[in-house]
């Protein structure tokens, strides 16, 4: 039987969509504006010709000492595509961007998290993001400096350095990146052994990469461009409108948010409210510090092999815990547990985040995720799971780690027998410092942009 998704065109997919460059622990992210289009195109073409932007076909072991990814905002694509830009073929959340009053309300970017207090992303001056990965921090710095040479046509808007933590733990002290969807048709997919693991984590390629069937078996909507665009002849005809070119094929939408973490406040609160047998930090996060599940699933064969069905009441992992809200697995309401898991799996994201530390000591997570639909995946998780005060029967509380306090929020319920324990006045310790929506084009689309 032909394996679904096994026809992935790795050669035309940017490497970042396939792997997290775990062998290149240091990263630099340069949000840039395009100052001179011809110079920028020449620079981009050079990167592509020299193979300095890896495709998904390049295996981790062949990456060398450094690599790159590049993505563009709606303003950036409009600038480069000129008259070939077809705004209505892109989703409105992408063309409007993250900073829009109603979207801010939906995402919970209000109060402390409101865009007016952001460091970057508020002005419409970002055209793209260059993501550089290397073995050493100095190499990454050099890569960004090289990119900013005047002859390359870029101007710097902001830059952020981040890295994979040596101990694998994010700043609050918890193992990170444990639960990650596996794209069907990739080498990781073949490593999934048990049936439940496959059901839980093997996700149709079209949920993350345009041009392939998604979880419903249909092709996700893909942006188009006019055939008048130079270089567009290298793009396939658009599947719905053959008179246009499929600009989106093998691309993905990228979300970046810079999340500062108040580690001292978190640790102080956890220490003050924990008692013997109750670590409220673990309860709020939903895993142990080492990454083990809090569910009491006796059949689990690994740290990620559980579906919360044996912990429906949340007495192991609280219903409102961060990881459970981010992916409730089989516990969304549906006619059967299998159907519920399928519904949950329509809202998965590929995370590519790393931790950062500023010169002034601010630490946090540079959250990056890839998805085929920003509204159905990233925004849905943010609005309908993390920030929903009514999530799965709860009332007046949001994600205790990353949710935005609303109204009387600041409450966190820890279900227990004979009755629940309730945390009051849980502070907000994660603050949004900036963010934007990007499109990570496929390699052929990048070549077309460079023409």
């Amino acid at each position, binding site marked *: 039987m032909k394996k679904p998704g096994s026809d992935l065109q790795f050669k035309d997919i940017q490497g970042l969509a396939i792997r997290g460059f775990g062998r290149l622990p240091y990263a630099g992210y340069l949000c840039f504006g395009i100052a001179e289009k011809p110079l920028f195109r020449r620079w981009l073409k050079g990167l592509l010709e020299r193979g300095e932007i890896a495709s998904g076909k390049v295996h981790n072991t062949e990456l060398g000492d450094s690599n790159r990814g590049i993505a563009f905002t709606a303003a950036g694509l409009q600038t480069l595509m000129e008259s070939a830009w077809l705004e*209505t073929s892109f*989703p*409105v959340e992408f*063309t*409007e961007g993250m900073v829009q009053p*109603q*979207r801010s*309300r*939906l995402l919970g970017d209000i109060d402390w998290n409101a865009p007016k207090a952001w460091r970057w992303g508020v002005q419409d001056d970002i055209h793209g993001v260059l993501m550089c990965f290397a073995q050493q921090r100095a190499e990454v710095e050099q890569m960004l400096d090289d990119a900013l040479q005047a002859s390359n046509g870029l101007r710097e808007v902001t830059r952020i350095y981040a890295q994979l933590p040596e101990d694998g733990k994010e700043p609050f002290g918890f193992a990170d990146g444990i639960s990650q969807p596996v794209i069907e048709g990739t080498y990781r997919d073949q490593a999934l052994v048990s049936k439940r693991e496959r059901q839980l984590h093997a996700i149709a390629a079209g949920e993350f990469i345009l041009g392939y069937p998604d979880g*419903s078996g*249909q092709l*996700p*909507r893909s942006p188009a461009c006019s055939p008048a665009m130079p270089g567009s002849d290298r793009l396939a005809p658009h599947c*719905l409108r053959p008179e246009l070119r499929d600009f989106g094929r093998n691309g993905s939408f990228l979300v970046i948010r810079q999340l500062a973490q108040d580690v001292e406040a978190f640790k102080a609160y956890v220490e003050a409210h924990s*008692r013997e047998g109750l670590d409220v930090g673990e309860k709020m996060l939903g895993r142990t510090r080492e990454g083990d599940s809090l569910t009491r699933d006796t059949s689990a064969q690994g740290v990620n092999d559980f579906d919360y069905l044996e912990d429906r*009441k949340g007495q192991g992992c609280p219903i409102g815990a961060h990881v459970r809200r981010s992916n409730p697995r089989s516990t969304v*309401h*549906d*006619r059967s547990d299998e*159907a519920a898991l*399928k*519904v949950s799996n*329509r*809202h998965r994201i590929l995370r590519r985040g790393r931790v950062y530390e500023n010169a002034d000591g601010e630490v946090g997570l540079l959250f990056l995720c890839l998805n085929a*639909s920003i*509204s*159905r995946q990233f*925004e*849905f998780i943010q*609005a*309908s799971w993390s920030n*929903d*005060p*009514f999530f*799965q*029967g*709860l*009332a*007046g509380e949001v994600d205790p780690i990353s949710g935005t306090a*609303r*109204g009387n929020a600041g409450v966190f*319920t820890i*279900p227990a*027998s*004979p*009755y*629940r*324990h*309730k945390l*009051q006045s849980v502070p907000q310790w994660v603050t949004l410092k900036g963010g934007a929506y990007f499109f990570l084009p496929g390699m052929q689309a990048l070549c077309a942009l460079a023409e």
Partner: protein
Amino acid sequence: MSQVIFTCIFPVVPGQQQTLRERLLNLEYNGDSPKSDPLNFRHLGCLHYASLFLYDDPIDGWYLVFESNIDGTIDHYFREFVALAETNNTQPAVLELFNCCVGFEQGTIAELSQFLKATVQMPAASYSGCVGRSRQQIEFEAQLHELVSATLDQLPPGSDAGSAALAVHTALQADSRFADLKQLPPSCPDAQELLNAQFQLHRRAAIPKGLKAHGRALVTKLRLVTTWFKQAGFAESVKVLAAGITFLVLGLWNWLRKESCAAEDAWRPEPEHLRSLRAFEDILPCNHMVSVVHAHQDFSRRWAKWAAFKLLSFAARYGYIHGVLGSIPTIHFAHWVPLNQHRRLLFVSNFDGSWESYLDDFTLKAQRGLNLAWAHGKGMPRSQFMLGGGAAHGPEFIDWARRSMVPTLAWFNAYPHLSICNINRNTALRQAIAGDYQQNNAGEWLELVQ
């Protein structure tokens, strides 16, 4: 207590739609004082949810729609509505809205009740997530939960179930509001009876052995439907069976002749239209949705639609009474009304969570029900036999639904901080505590408290 779900539809005096729109946008309707609630919604003790909005029909012009979800009778509701306007001296604000409507340009407050009654449209199908509970009961049970929760918060860590239950009982006895928790009826007499019947059905493990999972599920479903018919009685059962046969015959006919339909809309909604909708969304943790679609009108599709609504109505009344419609646990009140000689179909819904999560539920969990209701909407993704396809085309259906929506200009929600899950949990808690008084159990109900 019986609930009534209905809408009043008023043709707007030509040219007055913009004035009316501005008045509605400037109207305050969620405050405690008459000034901040000139329509007196908060003081209308029987009102759960209400909304006002406008829609434009290309043939008949603009309409004002007034949606209400109430306890008791429509007569009583309108009498109270008018009486409160007089008592609180808010007649000018009330009249300046309805004087924009055809037939009431010079109307007075004394004539308003009669005018409103004449415009009532009852829904073709409706659904309530809190069957049988009055607004007072919902608010009372929420207060009970609040007191119980606050009592548990005061207990020393590690208290056992017995001492927790005792503390709760002591707190309740000290509060005169909760003198008799059994005074209230169960959630709904009809609903309770039906639930009991369904429970009995599940206890009878008489499903033939050897049937596989699908077979067992089918047998259980058939038995459940049988209890619905028993509950409905002979006359209504005959009507529903007639509707079922009509649906099968006309649905098959429509399917076989591969009915022509308007081209499916493949474009995304206009950004400006989306912004006009979003301006009123996600202000509270619950939301309101209004959709007015254009419907195909030929004989066979119109009557197939009529039959489909009869079936939906029957299922909502006798089947979906646990606070979950299909697999959607977030709807407070929803209804469909055919308008403009069946050329248009209005759908109004009051639900928990964001619009995105609601439509996600629609397209991932309740495709068949949606197709039954909307299959003959012009421009909707093509469905098969009014059941398959259609809403299963997720993004296309969502875009179509967005294009058919109009902004809610005024929306009243009596209990915005209670989800339908919270309401049902609070009822279960009250009933359990009331039972515990008698049985003197150590509170198994403690786990219901948040």
